[in-house]
């Protein structure tokens, strides 16, 4: 039943810059099963965007894939031809981007853009437009036939993001990547968008890689979660287990800082002091050491490996504290 759809295997990605190689992703490994929703959480600059563009192979020219593989249905996407890659984009793998205000072409109508992305289909123009209208009404846009003739600026941000979801799901992809789809929107719209996403996901049974720094949304929507920090996976596993029993200090701090989690009225909102380390000049040992309140001498000495904590749920964390626990 659980068939692996996407497998990121020991992926390391660098950006070549004027001040040396930026190690944007280091030894990332996780997998996504068919029809499963996996969340990726992390601060800005943790490598979420690099990860997405690596999966779609839409990376900046200065990107170097140093090692590892991105396997989709068993094929390594990093070494197939550009033409093969292009045939996957928008058909097997779709994406919803972060900023709905910038995501559509401003001088073409929504109908035209929804028509154009069906370029692989052999349907007639009328059939394609019908399909586009059908998708628009599926995401709750009233009067879709008339709306197709309008330009992006004639829609609100929330509507534009719903259109983006309609466009991404139109081809019934096996994998949908949602890159912070609700970050740019109001909290009330966020719920709406998530609901549409979830109902369509269930209808189509597509897998979703959901990137967000909103822990509440992740907890609500996802089956499993991957916590990233400074280009590496620090913890991953079942969503309830991670939120209920986090095994990495970073995950713990992240949960503490989530506004939804703060019960009492605080004078000062909790933060994680310090900054993300410089990816061009990584410190020795654990990457979170400098911001961690439980750091030990061992953390400076060597990098903690991502270690399995619970075999059944697949809970893994990269922290020496867990080694101590297990040893004792």
């Amino acid at each position, binding site marked *: 039943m659980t068939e692996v759809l996407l497998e990121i295997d020991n992926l390391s990605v660098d950006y070549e810059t004027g001040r040396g190689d930026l190690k944007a992703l280091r030894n990332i490994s996780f997998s996504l099963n068919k029809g499963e929703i996996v969340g990726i959480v992390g601060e800005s600059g943790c490598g979420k965007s690099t990860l997405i563009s690596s999966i779609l192979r*839409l990376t900046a020219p200065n990107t170097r894939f140093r090692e590892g593989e991105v396997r989709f249905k068993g094929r390594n996407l990093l070494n197939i031809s550009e033409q093969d890659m292009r045939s996957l984009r928008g058909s097997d793998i779709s994406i919803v981007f972060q900023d709905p205000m910038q*995501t*559509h*072409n*401003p*001088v*073409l109508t929504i109908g035209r853009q929804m028509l*154009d992305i069906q*370029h692989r289909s052999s349907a007639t123009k009328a059939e394609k437009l019908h399909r586009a209208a059908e998708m628009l009404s599926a995401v709750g846009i009233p009067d879709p036939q008339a709306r197709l003739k309008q330009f992006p*600026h004639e829609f609100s941000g929330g509507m534009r993001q719903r259109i983006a979801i309609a466009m991404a799901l139109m081809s019934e992809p096996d994998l949908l990547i949602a890159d912070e789809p609700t970050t740019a929107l109001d909290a009330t719209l966020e719920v709406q968008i998530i609901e549409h996403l979830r109902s369509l996901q269930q209808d189509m049974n597509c897998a979703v890689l959901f990137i967000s720094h909103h822990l509440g949304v992740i907890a609500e929507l996802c089956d499993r979660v991957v916590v990233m920090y400074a280009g590496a996976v620090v913890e991953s596993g079942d969503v309830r287990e991670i939120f209920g029993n986090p095994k990495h200090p970073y995950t713990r701090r992240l949960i503490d800082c989530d506004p939804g989690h703060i019960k009492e009225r605080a004078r000062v909102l909790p933060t994680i002091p310090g900054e993300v380390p410089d990816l061009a000049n990584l410190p020795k040992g654990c990457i979170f050491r400098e911001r961690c309140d439980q750091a030990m001498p061992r953390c400076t000495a060597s990098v903690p490996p991502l270690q399995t904590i619970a075999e059944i749920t697949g809970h893994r964390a990269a922290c020496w504290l867990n080694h101590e626990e297990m040893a004792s």
Partner: protein
Amino acid sequence: MLSFTIQRIGLAVLILFVAVTAMFLMIRAVPGDPVQIMLGPRATPELQALLTAELGLDQPIWKQLAIFYGNLLQGDLGIDVFSGRAVTDIVFQQLPHTLWLILASIVWSAGLGIVIGAYAAAHPNTIIDRIAAAISVSFVAVPAFVLALLSLLIFAVHLQWFPAIGAGDGFWGALDHLVLPAFAIGLSWVGYIARLVRASMLEVMGEHHIRTARAFGLSERRIVMVYALRLAILPVVTVIGVGMGFLLSAAVFAEIVFARPGLGKLVIDSITTRNYPVVMGAVLVSTGLFAASTAIADLLNAWLDPRARSAR
């Protein structure tokens, strides 16, 4: 959109008014009495006085201006002092020649410039891009009159591929006569538009919606030619509209070098003979052409860009 159109036409009328008034005052500041030139050195003072009165030149200058505008509003641009023909007839006889020349120059230079610019932007920092840049810059650097003389010498005199002078008869004859002058005027525009389109294109290619188009697997060709170019073309329309002024002055050179009839040649000829009414008529029409083209460019831009359309 309607109020914007009205506003834009109002601006065009204002431009026209300022330019025509300035020209009216300037031509009277130029030394040389038109009456003396017309009648010759041996005319009697009585005859001179009679003609001066007939032309209205004995009136104060503000009154002359008022009379001029009064007549203009009735579509009367006065009488050519030499031939006695109506100036409107003369000007509108010459206008099509200039219009065709400018139109031909814009069409070929914008067409080629957009292709070069889009191609360069699609392959940034490659050898193709650098060659395109070098060619574009050297095109911009060549003055139209030098190019006119050179092309006349090479293609008309030596190679005899194209006719050297005149405007030609019939469609094909006219087209044949248009090639060299349009080439001379348009070449620097090819370079200019190519650079403009490249810059504008590179900016658009970095925008998020292009990434979206790529993420849906649209072909690079389609992304460049439709998704990016539709946006990148907008500044070109504005530049061509404003550039009409430069094209008009370049047309003057081309008309003289190739001895083509046209507004430019008409203005130069009538300035040398102090033929005030004809100068004023020709200047009025070319200013009108300029004001109209900038207005059309702005309206076209608003029409091409749906965001601007609904904002107004």
